[in-house]
């Protein structure tokens, strides 16, 4: 066991730093750093720069354009990215549908879809959840009935993150009889969002923004060649994807950077005299989060090490999801606490890039509460934290 970087790793770290300094667009950095509104174009622009460098897909197999990085290199990348306030790659294409396509798709599908994902030419969204199928995803009711060379899709998907940006959606649909077991009834289907019969309506979240949508399908005709793998195998494919989703969810590097800037902010916030950071109760809260985060960092490293020796990310990834989101939410709460009375103003226009007016409150205090409200989602989505505990009980503890 050894936590030091080798010569090559140090050189890689230097290369990453250099690259980010030279190539990471300043306007995107400013948006991420200050919690400003991120536009679709920002993601696309950044992802194309990563593609040019050959660093778009850290987790993909090399043959499809992956970086071939070791776990340590990924760790270095994550830390340096967080320090430079790098915009995280939009997960739906890169981290969610791509692994399914390169693992279970046919040659034609790989060639058709993967390059556009890698180059960020196409925006994907995730169509799993439905109004009556949330935690119990397998009870989904959207149907795909085969008619000649097409599936006719009917139903409603919901909570579709940034679906209003999307060109394509990957869906779990029911191809079997309504009463058939999930293992044989659910299929994985890729659908062009421009197909007639699809409509997208907004859902506004607690921070007043449009981030999620409902996507309605009315007699939507989808060519059968858009089916991944075999009919009735969708549930198996999706499960693989969910574990991928969870290993990415701890966001340790990101939380570490946030913790540092939070300490600095609290050291510069007057608590009606002395600095807030010198307040014993506040200090203890910060330390408690830091302890959780340190433990989580090493839990994540242990998991990554296991994965690199060929073991699949198992139910332990549930730990990463639960603790990662708890730490993030605790940091959100401290941001609100630091803001004090300035958690109150709700000044949306202040968080658009290029806002020239006077900011209300110190730093981005006015963004603290909306962010805190919005981030309650992280313990709900990606398999809620309750569902993660159920997984641990069943799969690890044998209960």
């Amino acid at each position, binding site marked *: 066991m050894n936590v030091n970087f080798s010569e090559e790793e140090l050189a890689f770290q230097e290369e990453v730093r250099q690259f980010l300094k030279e190539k990471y667009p300043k306007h995107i950095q400013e948006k991420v750093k200050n919690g400003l509104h991120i536009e679709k174009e920002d993601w696309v622009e950044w992802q194309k720069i990563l593609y040019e460098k050959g660093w778009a897909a850290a987790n993909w197999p090399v043959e499809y354009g992956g970086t071939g990085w070791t776990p340590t290199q990924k760790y270095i990348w994550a830390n340096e990215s967080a320090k430079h306030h790098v915009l995280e790659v939009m997960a739906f294409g890169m981290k969610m549908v791509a692994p399914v396509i390169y693992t279970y798709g046919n040659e034609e599908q790989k060639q058709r879809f993967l390059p556009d994902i890698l180059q960020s030419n196409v925006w994907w969204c995730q169509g799993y959840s439905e109004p009556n199928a949330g935690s119990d995803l397998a009870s989904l009711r959207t149907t795909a009935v085969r008619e000649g060379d097409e599936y006719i899709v009917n139903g409603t998907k919901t909570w579709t993150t940034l679906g209003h940006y999307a060109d394509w959606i990957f869906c779990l649909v029911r191809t079997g009889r309504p009463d058939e077991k999930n293992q044989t009834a659910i299929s994985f289907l890729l659908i062009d969002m421009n197909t007639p019969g699809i409509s997208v309506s907004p859902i506004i*979240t607690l921070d007043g923004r449009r981030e999620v949508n409902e996507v309605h399908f009315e007699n939507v005709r989808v060519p059968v060649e858009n089916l991944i793998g075999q009919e009735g195998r969708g549930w198996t494919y999706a499960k693989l994807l969910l574990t991928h989703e969870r290993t990415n969810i701890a966001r340790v590097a990101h939380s570490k950077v946030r913790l540092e800037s939070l300490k600095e902010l609290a050291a510069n916030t*007057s608590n009606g005299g002395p600095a807030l950071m010198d307040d014993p109760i506040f200090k203890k809260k910060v330390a408690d989060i830091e302890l959780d985060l340190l433990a989580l960092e090493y839990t994540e490293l242990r998991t990554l090490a296991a994965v690199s020796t060929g073991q699949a990310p198992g139910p332990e990834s549930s730990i990463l999801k639960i603790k990662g989101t708890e730490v993030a939410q605790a940091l959100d709460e401290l941001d609100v606490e630091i803001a*004090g009375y*300035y958690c109150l103003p709700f000044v949306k226009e202040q968080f658009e890039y290029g806002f020239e007016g006077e900011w*209300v409150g110190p730093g981005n205090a006015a963004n603290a509460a909306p962010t805190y409200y919005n981030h309650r*989602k992280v313990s709900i989505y990606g398999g809620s934290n309750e569902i993660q505990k159920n997984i641990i009980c069943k799969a690890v503890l044998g209960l």
Partner: protein
Amino acid sequence: MDFSYSEEQQMLRDSIAKFVNQDYDFDTRQKIVASEGGFSKENWKLFAELGWLMVPFKEEDGGLGGTAVDLVGLMEELGKGIVVEPIIPTVILGGGIIAEAGSAQQKEELLGTLMEGNLQLAFAFAEPQSRYNTADIATKAEKSGDSYKINGHKAVVLNANNADKIIVAVRTSGDQRDENGISLLIVDADAAGIEKRSYETVDGHQGADLYFKDVTVPAANLLGEEGKALSAIQNVVDRAALAVAAEAVGAMEVTYKKTVEYTKTRKQFGVPIAVFQALQHRMAEMFIEHEQAKSIMLMAAMQSDAAGGVDRKAISAAKARIGKAARLVGQEAVQLHGGIGVTDELDVGHYFKRLTTIQFIFGSTDWHTERFAGL
């Protein structure tokens, strides 16, 4: 010992409860929040007619002689509807500070109009650097001849955009955090030299940052004795702390009950999610937190009445303990609702928002915990 409400107290509660149930459903509230000024003038008139605006004022000031027990009754019931009409800034803070520090003439001039529903107030006490230290005042008022000239920046002044008059805590002498040398001035909201940066607040209320630049105020607008305002300010802020704590108690009751109802109707895995014991225990916790919060609210109100106004230690106990409960109940309500809990369309998210901000105004949970421990 007696924990029953008097007949009048019960009537007051009933009439507010009736209003919230019949005239203040969630959609109505959201329309009011989005309307010009962010509150309903009609409702305000109604509150005046029903005598609610008189509750906290002494009989000799023309009020109903309301006790702290009456005050928490009023606020608890309003909290059930997360009512946004500016009771806190106009009645509790603005009216409160006039009642606390004003001369007979000032009270007569202002409180009567206020109780009739024809005066909106704001109380500018906090500053960007002050946090919860009411003595930390950098805004200066210099006296020359018959007037004061105010310069400075007041932070997050609730209802400032609607107010006819603003009561401003200023420093007339001493250093920035001296306890002496703090004074109060009544300023017309449209006085020359006041720049307002108005905004709605994250919980559906209204506020503004105020920048004073050579704002001239007649010396007659001094409220109370020059340089001696601190204890009056703290009393009023403490009463506001108790008031929002009581509001939180009402909001928590609705929030936990709505959560219980929701989990009984929301089905996943073929059963109502209320069947899962993992969730049942958490709802039991929410219920316990609400009960504990209600108890400590009544404790603080009764102790304050026994002390003849404000019992700082008891109020800190209540604000801190209720803040802790509000945090748990609000967060759990959202979590147990799942995705729908983080949407703007569902009421529960808005109760959660208000239960959050209440933790950080008029002294945060930690600030009150520390004050409690130190008193």
